[in-house]
């Protein structure tokens, strides 16, 4: 992680003009945790209606990037525009899928209750979740193939099903930009297919999705664009152009890339 500070500063990814129409424009953003910068000077414009992978080694700041966009961690400098406006004014157009491990799944709620949480903001303060909204939640569960699990308590779901519940919670928000933190991490094959299907579905309706992704093998198959990150933006653009061995080496560093590939192979083997 630390050796990455010695990486060359990327030149080709700096966009001079930030188009207003972009679902997500990050301008010169630096984020720090306890005064230690985690990501430096990220400058990025997301294209509309594409599936975008955020790829980088552990500790590269992938989750932090998403959290900074969502104002969950304070930015040291820089600004973020969502469809041309600050995030606080565009919350209804953005849906967030946190890491599955970020919550306690032994919580006493059902899958449907969790999905309904995506509707709370539209419901407003003090309004109960009525039949109409519960129906919406069930429809979203149906989209991720969990229609039969609506009443199941969430701890009785498998890891992949829990991930799909989170995805359904984002779907129910009917947003235009989806930010997903490792939705493919540790899920079964059925869930992977379901998530991919939902992602392609979103793309076909003109939505944009930024997905933190750890599995290098599937990046080219699943995503149109890729954003390579290791504490700073290494490269970004269409997968076919940017997802090259050269760029990957720059992202992971020689030694790390090998380690990660071994890890990926191992993960593959166990599936």
């Amino acid at each position, binding site marked *: 992680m630390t050796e990455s500070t010695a990486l060359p500063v990327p030149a080709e990814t700096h966009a001079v003009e930030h188009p207003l129409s972009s679902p997500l424009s990050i301008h010169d953003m630096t984020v720090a945790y*306890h005064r230690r910068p985690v990501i430096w000077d990220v400058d990025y414009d997301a294209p509309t209606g594409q599936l975008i992978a955020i790829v980088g080694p552990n500790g590269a700041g992938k989750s932090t990037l998403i*959290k900074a966009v*969502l*104002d*969950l961690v304070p930015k040291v400098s820089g600004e973020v525009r969502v469809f041309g406006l600050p995030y*606080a004014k565009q*919350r209804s157009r*953005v849906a*967030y899928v*946190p890491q599955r491990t*970020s*919550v*306690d799944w032994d*919580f*006493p*709620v*059902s899958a449907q*209750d*969790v999905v309904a*949480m995506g509707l*709370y*903001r539209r*419901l407003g*303060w*003090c*309004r*109960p*979740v009525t039949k109409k909204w519960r129906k919406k939640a069930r429809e979203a569960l149906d989209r991720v193939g969990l229609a039969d699990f609506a009443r199941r*308590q969430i*701890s009785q779901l498998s890891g992949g099903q829990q991930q799909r519940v989170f995805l359904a*919670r984002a779907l129910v928000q009917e947003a235009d930009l989806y930010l997903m933190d490792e939705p493919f991490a540790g899920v079964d*094959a*059925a869930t992977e297919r379901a998530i991919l299907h939902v992602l392609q579905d979103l793309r076909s309706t003109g939505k944009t999705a930024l997905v933190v992704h750890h599995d290098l093998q599937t990046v080219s198959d699943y995503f149109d664009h890729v954003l390579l990150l290791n504490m700073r933006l290494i490269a970004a653009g269409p997968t076919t152009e940017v997802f090259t061995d050269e760029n990957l080496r720059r992202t992971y560093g020689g030694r790390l890339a090998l380690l990660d590939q071994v890890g990926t192979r191992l993960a593959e*083997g*166990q*599936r």
Partner: protein
Amino acid sequence: MSAMLAMAMCVGGGLEAFGKGSLQIANCKLQIVDCAIPLVRELCLGTHPQGTHPRGTSLLCVPSCELPVLAAESVWLVKQGISKDAFPNRVRERGWSRVAVCTGRPQRPIRNLQFAICSLQSSFPDRMPFAQPSPPIFSRLLRVLSLRDYNTRVVLLGTTLLGITAGVVGTFMLLRKRALVGDVVGHSALPGIAVAFLVMEGVSPGTGKSLPGLLTGAFVFGLAGAVSVMLIGRYSRIKPDAAMAMTLSVFYGLGAALFTIVQKVPGGNAAGLKTFLNGKTASLTADDVWLFASVAAVVLTLTMLLLKELTLLCFDDQFAAAEGWPVFGLDTLLIGLVVTVTIIGLQSVGLILVVATLIIPPASARFWTDDIRWMTLGAGLVGGLSSFGGTVMSALFPHVAAGAVIVLTGACLFTVSLCFGAQQGVAIHWLRQRKLRRDVGRVDLLRAMFELLEHQTREAVPTLEQIVVREFSLADLLPMRSWEPGAVRGLLSIAARDGLVRAAGHDVWQLTPSGAEEARRVVRNHRLWEMYLTQYAHIAPSHVDRDADLIEHVLDPDLIAELSRQLEHAEDDVPASSHTTGGGSQAPD
């Protein structure tokens, strides 16, 4: 505690007749401890500007056997205008075992007197031993439960309301993983009480113990304690448990230091302040209960209105923040509710035990339900029940602090929930385990029978007809697995009960048609999984059987379908085993 304040007072000679030898009340010096209401204190001391001296006052007497009852009795005495001359007879008639005496003017507000008497009484049991036995426990229980006495009604209503409210609010604290914040609030309230007393005494001497003032002080400091925990967690790397431990002890230390100052205030009387430490359940007054009721109403309404928001906050605060909900605000509100309940609860169970009334009820309710709405209701129910039960018990055993009894009653309910809870109880868990063990045993048995047959017919997968006619002896089955004869007999008898096998002689068994069908099914699932493991997970065939054993018991129909699809296997076909099966050559690992 009794050293805190001692004051002497004389009682008229009318008591001489009573309890000859066993009690020296006449002209003795009685200590009044914890006399918290200034008015009564002054009355007793005879320093009140309006009422001068015990002369001409009525005697109040108090039986100590029933705490909630006793004040009502004394009120009754006052109301009856019993003179001090009639007093000894009255004591005998009633069969009171212990008597505490103080003087007061009957026209003073009864409620205040009640309070003083209770406080008085609670300090007396050890000092005034009387020989007479208390009434039988059953009749006392009946008397408490029948709510015959005004004071019983007041105290029971008050503690029950508190229990319900604390349980409901505690649910969210438990789910927010801040169970100990209640403890922090309770301990932080101590300096608040001292500061409030000092400030009020400073502004106008003698008013130091007005309850609203003390509670306000407790509230401010309790909130400060809780908010400092939140802030330390937010803006430093100190972990929450350390933050709580520090805040709790620092505030409590401050409180202890301030209390030494309080006791040195000239003319100040710190007595009664320390009831906040252990509570004063038995001496709750109607005013207290009105306060509890209004607080309970506000807190419960807020919780109901914000159920959705609080649930989201407790489950996923990151998502809530991303969605634009004011997480810090909601947290502060929740803490505010907890502080309110805690401060009110101080009066009932005291600041050291108040955390138990917040946490035990929701922890118990969690064993019964997987739904946060039911859990909240259940926590209210458990909280109310334990407070009610605890108060009734403390009325029966007046020497035990009522707050402690309430907490112990809650602990009993928790233990019951832990063992017999419908969702996560130990009993239900054990039953599920037993069912799983039986299912596993049945699958193992059927598979052993099928494979035994398969081994004999040499490679060809046996047909259903072949399976049904074959008889299995116990000796056949034993080598298939590391089974004890008793275990196999147990499995067989369960399988026979389910109609899967039937006895064909002594220790000889046959599969029924449905058993044969089931055997084919379980073997097929097992083989499919084995194939999956060898083909996709690259596990050596000799190791597959064990792994397949572990996993096959959790395969559901969906997964089986998925396996069939992936392995492109025909619907009904039983694939051949990838390793040796049958007698003797088992357990490759």
